[in-house]
């Protein structure tokens, strides 16, 4: 049985998620699909599992008996399962109030219920060698057991191709080991396991072959034995290895100062012992892989989320402007008018009475001066394109004349032209004296914009030489400094 995806392309709005990607996996292998956030890994696997329809390309599954199935797209996960493909999603998809066997029966489409379903589930669990409490309610299970259930569900319909989307994110180290052992065994028995990950060490522990995606194109594919951690990291993060990052700014006074700062969110330690400064006139880029404390750090500086300082100090000069990453749920209220959205984010609270004529005039002027293409002050924010929405968010932020600007993924989802314009605005704000601290999950964006880079891993600021190369930043991101 072979899985082959040929020249798959997919756009989301103006963003290219996949651009002519080809991928193939053969029986007996664990195939790692590696890439940064937003590289297109999950999109590619969602296409293979019939969750997303590609715009171009072909999906081929070669059955054991030589029967070939070729289709431009699976219409649904049900079709993909019928072709022998199972998927373990990044987020659990089981129903917490149901029992283990009820969840398996639901996914596999069994007609049995109750005892009969439990017997059948027990049989499958034994065959797969993945012990599970069949009659337990899912809500009572640990994260590891819940994930085991996801795997059992994926394989309950006799799938021989197993797609796993970042399955180790929720697991403790010992549990990771058990999962990787299972995948090795599954492949040894003739199955195909495709493992989506951004963790290099897991790739080296388990994979036979590897495919690296970067910004929707394959940058590397081949036998793992021929690769080194550096060759993979560079395929992930980009070429242009030794270029030092020029110091662009003439920094002024300190506007943000963190000293031995530790932060928790919801009781979880997110940032540990971080010390750094951001001066007016400079752009500091925070590079980090998703979930390494960057969100909490930025939000603590912006003062917007329920992040708790448990140790150290954080001093921020006001006013602070915050540009949240989610335009449609945090930055803007889609059902509000442009004028209302602008008002909401402005710091001027001296006038409690709203003079709508003046507000409409001001809004109109701001739309014109920031080149925001919209119907007018009364149009709903939802009617704007992503680029124009982000321009509105920036116009609003700058209207506060902030001393500090905090931006999360400021150009995510924008087309190149809009992204350039936003980046130019951030630079202009820094030139005018704002201290800017920004994060992007795309390292290239951080490097393109930042005067200085701060790498966060597991909530800790990583040591970097004073003029780090991309290579050194990549190593710090992926925890390979020690391996050098």
């Amino acid at each position, binding site marked *: 049985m072979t899985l082959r995806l040929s020249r798959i392309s997919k756009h989301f709005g103006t963003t290219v998620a996949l651009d002519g990607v080809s991928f193939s996996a053969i029986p007996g292998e664990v195939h790692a699909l590696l890439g940064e956030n937003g590289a297109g890994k999950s999109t590619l696997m969602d296409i293979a599992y019939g969750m997303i329809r590609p715009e171009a390309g072909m999906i081929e599954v070669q059955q054991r008996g030589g029967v070939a199935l070729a289709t431009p797209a699976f219409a649904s996960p049900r079709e993909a399962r019928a072709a022998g493909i199972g998927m373990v999603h990044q987020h659990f998809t089981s129903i917490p109030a149901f029992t283990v066997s009820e969840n398996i029966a639901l996914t596999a489409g069994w007609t049995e219920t109750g005892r009969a379903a439990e017997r059948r589930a027990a049989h499958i669990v034994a065959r797969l060698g993945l012990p599970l409490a069949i009659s337990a309610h899912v809500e009572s299970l640990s994260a590891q057991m819940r994930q085991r259930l996801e795997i059992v569900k994926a394989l309950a319909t006799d799938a021989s191709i197993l797609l796993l989307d970042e399955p180790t994110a929720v697991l403790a180290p010992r549990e990771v080991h058990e999962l990787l052992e299972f995948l090795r065994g599954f492949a040894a028995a003739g199955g195909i396991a495709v493992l989506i990950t951004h963790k290099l060490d897991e790739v080296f522990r388990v994979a036979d072959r590897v495919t690296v995606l970067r910004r929707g194109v394959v940058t590397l594919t081949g036998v793992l034995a021929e690769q080194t951690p550096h060759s993979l990291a560079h395929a992930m993060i980009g070429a242009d290895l030794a270029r030092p990052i020029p110091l662009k700014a003439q920094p002024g006074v300190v506007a943000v100062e963190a000293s031995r700062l530790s932060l928790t969110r919801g009781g979880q330690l997110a940032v540990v012992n971080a010390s750094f400064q951001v001066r007016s006139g400079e752009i500091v880029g925070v590079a980090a892989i998703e979930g390494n404390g960057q969100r909490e750090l930025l939000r603590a500086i*912006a003062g917007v989320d329920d992040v708790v300082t448990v140790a150290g100090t954080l001093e921020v000069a006001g006013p602070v402007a915050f540009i*949240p990453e*989610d335009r449609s*749920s*945090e930055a803007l*209220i889609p*059902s509000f008018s442009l004028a209302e959205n602008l008002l909401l984010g402005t710091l001027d609270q001296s*006038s409690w*009475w*709203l003079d709508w004529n003046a507000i409409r005039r001001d809004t109109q002027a701001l739309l014109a001066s920031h080149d925001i293409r919209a119907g007018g002050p009364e149009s709903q924010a939802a009617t704007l394109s992503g680029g124009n929405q982000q321009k509105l968010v920036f116009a609003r932020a700058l209207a506060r004349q902030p001393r500090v600007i905090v931006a999360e993924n400021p150009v995510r989802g924008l087309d190149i032209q809009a992204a350039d314009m936003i980046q130019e605005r951030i630079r202009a704000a820094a030139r005018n004296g704002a201290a800017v601290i920004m994060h992007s999950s795309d390292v290239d964006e951080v490097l393109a914009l930042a005067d200085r880079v701060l790498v966060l891993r597991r909530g800790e600021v990583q040591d970097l030489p004073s003029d780090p190369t991309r290579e050194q930043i990549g190593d710090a991101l992926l925890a390979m400094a020690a391996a050098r």
Partner: protein
Amino acid sequence: MIDSALLVGFAAASVRVGTPLALAAVGESIAERSGMINLGIEGAMLAGAFGAAVGAAHGGVASGVGAAVVAGLLVATVFAAVAVAARADQIISGTAVTLGATGLTGLLAQRAFTGGNLSLPILPVVHVPVIEHIPLVGPVFFRQTVLTYACYVLIPLASALLWRTRFGLELRACGEAPAAATAAGVHVGRTRALAVLMGGACAGLAGAALVLAQVGMFTERMTAGRGFIAIAIVALGRWNPWGTAAAALLFGGATALQYTFQAAGSHVPYQLFLALPYLLALAALGMAVGRHRGPAALGQSH
């Protein structure tokens, strides 16, 4: 032939009966715009009615109105503490608050009015000079009690609060997208708590209107679901104080129909008329509201 005196009487009764509904619904529309659906306003209204009776019995109608507002605020404070501060489920907290207020006012009423205290002072009908003589409009709208006039003031005030003030903008942001409001620096919890308290004060006033302008006494469970009707009115009025007032008048009319038909000596069973406002509430919710969306974050804790 429709008697014009009968028609004016019916319309005036609609306004009188609609007043408590409008007061409660305008307050609730403020709370709901902030994202809080408060089923506890039935309880707040009942507490207001009780407060009005006790206050009026001891210190006259002005004390009655004051005590009603305080009682409404107290009940709303409980709801705000549970549903805003402790982030409990709004539907369950509101129901619990109403049940609690029902039990408590019943218990206290047995103590307060043991001797069958029936001599409550009631609010006089105030004739507004000159405009009371405008045909139809005058006798219908301007021969009412001071609480109805308060309602006339409250409706534009609430509307201005929501759409003309910065606080109103922030309040509506809490109801549409609490995350965005937080990111903009709005204190969502505080804003929602204030909105709930405003709703509670209005519900208290509604209770006062029921006792001091309509019934003239307090009895257990006398609100009889008017608070819940007010919630339906808010939806029918599309979360807008003016629309809410119009919807309240419609429900007032449905209730007043009963009196008018009885006065006219109709043989239709009176229970049918008693049920009319509730049937209207269901029909209104099914027809008009289904197509209109309320605040996006209504009922979501933050």
